């Protein structure tokens, strides 16, 4: 379909803003814009149709089953959208004085208290903008903690699992730490022998997802925690999979000292096509002084922002964090109350049900009960019929499902990582099972149809090699001179000259 720029026509416009009868103010000549930006020129009806057509070419949880492993694509209750748009939240300026933001501060304080309870830890900062930023913040806390103890120079290494999300090693590098990887044993747990050999006085901490990205709870988590704490190191919990254990097992009780929570996964902030998210962190008491500023604190009946934290690592994001995300997640949690455990129970039941019904047709690298997600492998189909995990994913689209996460975790070849979430009905799970089984059967009879899939989407398979080789990352106005609106000659040249410089 056409780009909005290809629908643009000089002189057309949708919006109008107030104009006041005031003298115009000149921008000094050397700072004045000379060439108008080629934004779309389009009427409102055309604008609405354009974005409606784009929405039609997209698939969300609202459209259908979206078992994208590790992403927790659960239903997003619409009441959360209603409350986040209350003017008292939506139109509140972040520099509003504290007495004019008591409702917002109380909501943040209440959410902090809830997250501390769910994690079994003492203090929470809501500031990080996403899970990956929560990770980085957690590692900065580690560094600040050891610096405060005079151990910063010795403790240089952070250990991650070989099943870790790519964000873990990337965060370790961004925080200025050295990375060491620990292997997974044949039950899918951390390899304790490998761990014991690697943890020493140089270790700052462990970053671990538990349950892991294999969807397995580490059966030796208590021993793992002892190994690190005995060495004077800290444990960081990547909360990507917290949806499996809310009210069932708490990271703090497992021995973790720092936790990040993905509000967009566990607590239903809509994923928005790739964000926004929220990545609050919860910590054990000895780490509280290092949390980002400002902290939201309760002072008698009132709530305030505490900037006076001399040991704080500083700020990791603007203001108090992604407040709208807090409103939605708080509303989501309040719908469950103490029964939040039922959410995790249903998520784990749904995942185990799918696993039980699929493990005879796909390879299963670790044959255990799973938590909220599980990893199958298409290795059998590849070996026998040349059908890969990618092919299975594309063929699922023709059955009306979003594919699972594929080729992750890296230690499982042809991985299919499936996370149904708690909000799906049994009928949906059954239909997905039928589709997965049909594809496995089709691999034997008609592999080419699978390899050519999808057949029923707005586009066929796309050429990613071509996209990467000559990256076209914006519309080429120059190739469509008839579409280029008014533009002063001098200005255009100025821009081109600057690009060439």
């Amino acid at each position, binding site marked *: 379909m056409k780009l909005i720029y290809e629908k643009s026509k000089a002189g057309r416009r949708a919006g109008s803003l107030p104009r006041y009868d*005031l003298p115009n103010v000149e921008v000094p000549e050397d700072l004045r814009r000379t060439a108008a930006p080629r934004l779309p020129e389009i009427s409102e009806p055309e604008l609405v149709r354009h974005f409606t057509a784009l929405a039609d070419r997209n698939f969300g949880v609202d459209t259908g089953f*979206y078992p994208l492993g590790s992403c927790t694509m659960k239903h997003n209750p619409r009441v959360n959208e209603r409350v986040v748009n209350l003017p008292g*939240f939506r139109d509140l300026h972040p520099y509003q004085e504290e007495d004019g933001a008591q*409702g917002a501060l109380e909501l943040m304080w209440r959410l902090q208290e809830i997250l501390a309870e769910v994690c079994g830890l003492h203090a929470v900062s809501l500031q990080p903008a996403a899970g990956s930023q929560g990770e980085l913040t957690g590692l900065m806390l580690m560094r600040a903690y050891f610096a405060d103890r005079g151990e910063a120079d010795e403790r240089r290494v952070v250990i991650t699992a070989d099943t870790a999300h790519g964000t873990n*090693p990337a965060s370790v590098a961004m925080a200025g730490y050295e990375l060491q990887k620990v292997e997974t044993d044949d039950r899918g747990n951390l390899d304790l022998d490998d761990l014991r050999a690697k943890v020493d006085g140089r270790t700052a901490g462990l970053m671990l997802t538990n349950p892991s990205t294999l969807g397995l709870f580490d059966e030796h988590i208590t021993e793992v925690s002892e190994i690190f704490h005995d060495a004077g190191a800290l444990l960081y919990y990547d909360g990507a999979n917290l949806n499996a254990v809310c009210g069932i097992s708490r990271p703090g009780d497992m021995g973790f000292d720092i936790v990040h929570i993905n509000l*967009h996964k566990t607590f239903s902030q809509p994923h928005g096509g790739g964000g926004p998210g929220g990545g609050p962190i919860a910590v054990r008491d000895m780490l509280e002084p290092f949390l980002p500023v400002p902290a939201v604190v309760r002072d008698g009946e009132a709530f305030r922002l505490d900037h006076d934290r001399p040991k704080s690592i500083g700020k990791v994001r603007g203001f108090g964090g992604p407040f709208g995300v807090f409103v939605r997640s708080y509303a989501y949690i*309040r719908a469950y109350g103490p029964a939040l455990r039922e959410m995790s129970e249903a998520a784990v039941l749904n995942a185990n049900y799918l696993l039980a019904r699929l493990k005879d047709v796909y390879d299963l690298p670790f044959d255990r009960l799973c938590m909220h997600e599980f990893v199958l492998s298409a290795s059998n189909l590849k070996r026998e019929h040349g059908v890969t995990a990618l092919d299975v994913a594309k063929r699922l689209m023709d059955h009306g499902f979003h594919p699972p996460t594929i080729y992750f975790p890296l230690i499982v070849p042809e991985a299919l990582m499936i996370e149904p979430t708690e909000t799906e009905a049994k009928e949906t799970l059954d239909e997905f099972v039928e589709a997965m089984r049909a594809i496995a059967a089709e691999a034997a009879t008609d592999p080419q149809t699978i390899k050519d899939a999808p057949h029923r989407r707005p586009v066929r398979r796309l050429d990613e090699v071509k996209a*990467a080789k000559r990256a076209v990352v914006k519309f080429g106005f120059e190739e469509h001179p008839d579409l280029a609106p008014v533009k002063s000659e001098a200005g255009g040249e100025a821009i081109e000259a600057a690009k060439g410089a």
Partner: protein
Amino acid sequence: MSHLSLTDADREAMLAAVGVASVEELFRDIPEGVRFGRDLDIDPALSEPEIVAHLTELAERNVDTGKELSFLGGGIYDHYVPAVVDAVLARGEFLTAYTPYQPEMSQGVLQAIFEYQTAICELTGMDVSNASGYDGTTVAADACFVAKHATGRSKLVLCETVHPQVRQVVKTYAPGFGLEVVEVAHDGGITDPDELGKASADAACVIFQQPNFFGCLEPAPDLASAANEAGALPVAHVDLVSLGVLEPPGACGCALAIGEGQGAGNFQSYGGPHYGFLAARSDLVRRMPGRIVGETTDLEGERGYVLTLQTREQHIRREKATSNITTNQTLLALAGLVHLSWLGPQGLREQGETCMALGEYAKERLGLPLVFPDRTTFKEFAVHVGRSATDVIRDARAQGVHPGYALGRDYPGLDDAVLVAVTEKRTPEDIDRLAEVLGEVAR
């Protein structure tokens, strides 16, 4: 629980299929010692109407910009957000999708991001934009990481006129990156290019803000030249709303353009979620953080869009990635695209002109001494109020007017200064009212 879809009968059938007797048994791999033995201590569950009532009660204890005549700015602004933004963002296909890993399922979001990247490049005069960053502060840290690797240098220069929170975030990130931060003091509200040039020796990058935190217009082309001459990458932190009237960073010789997108399409929302943007010259494309969407064709030659240049990213490059970013701010960036498309080039220019005209009108009507009298300002400006700014703000708010941000919070010595922001939503009559109230409470 209304969010769940399983009936008791479903549960029984499913447990039987799994081969366990109870839900409890599904958790048998969790060691006894780390199982949670009680109910979570969370207030009782609420029905949907009760949720609305509870949250409404909280919301009403806030004084939003509909309740108080507000001149607050400082990076987040009460600009008008068109109704079409609400309509597009309410579409579940956008709202409830995730990162477009599977392009055949996600052409809508991918094309929208491609269109957003185009808009950001047009506005900033740069060659390539990412799909968005978290906000206007974190994109500054991202830019420093890009500059460090592009130049191999380990010093950063920040102008003191850059948003205080942007500077704080950069300083939080810098030690992990192995970077040292140097700040350049302002001279009468703007940055002196010579001073900046001196500080830029051996620097990876220089970050300046246009218009700066005081609302003053910096000599952007001279600042960029000073940085370029020292071999440091000039990074401009800009306001999209200003780019209908101000020269874009690309035309000023900047290597990177970054900023907070909130003013274009997002509500204030007590600070977030919003979107940060990051655009660069083409030679920096492989060092950019975050998602980038590219054009390609499908098997049948039809045009389509995919995430591209992904080898920069954490899921492939892991500890060598250009950033750890995964989730970004797609929905907010989509709002930005819809907003900018609704405005068009003409609307954006008019909006900028209106903000400037209102600003001049306000300076005149307030009649208070300007903190930086010789400067051209965009949308906001600083005035002396003759006594403690926080006291003046308190007294003005008692009359239903919030005059702006107390600059002394971040700039010692400016304790009697208020930063006043005027968007197109403030009428000349609103400004008259501000003048009246400040006339009473300022000295």
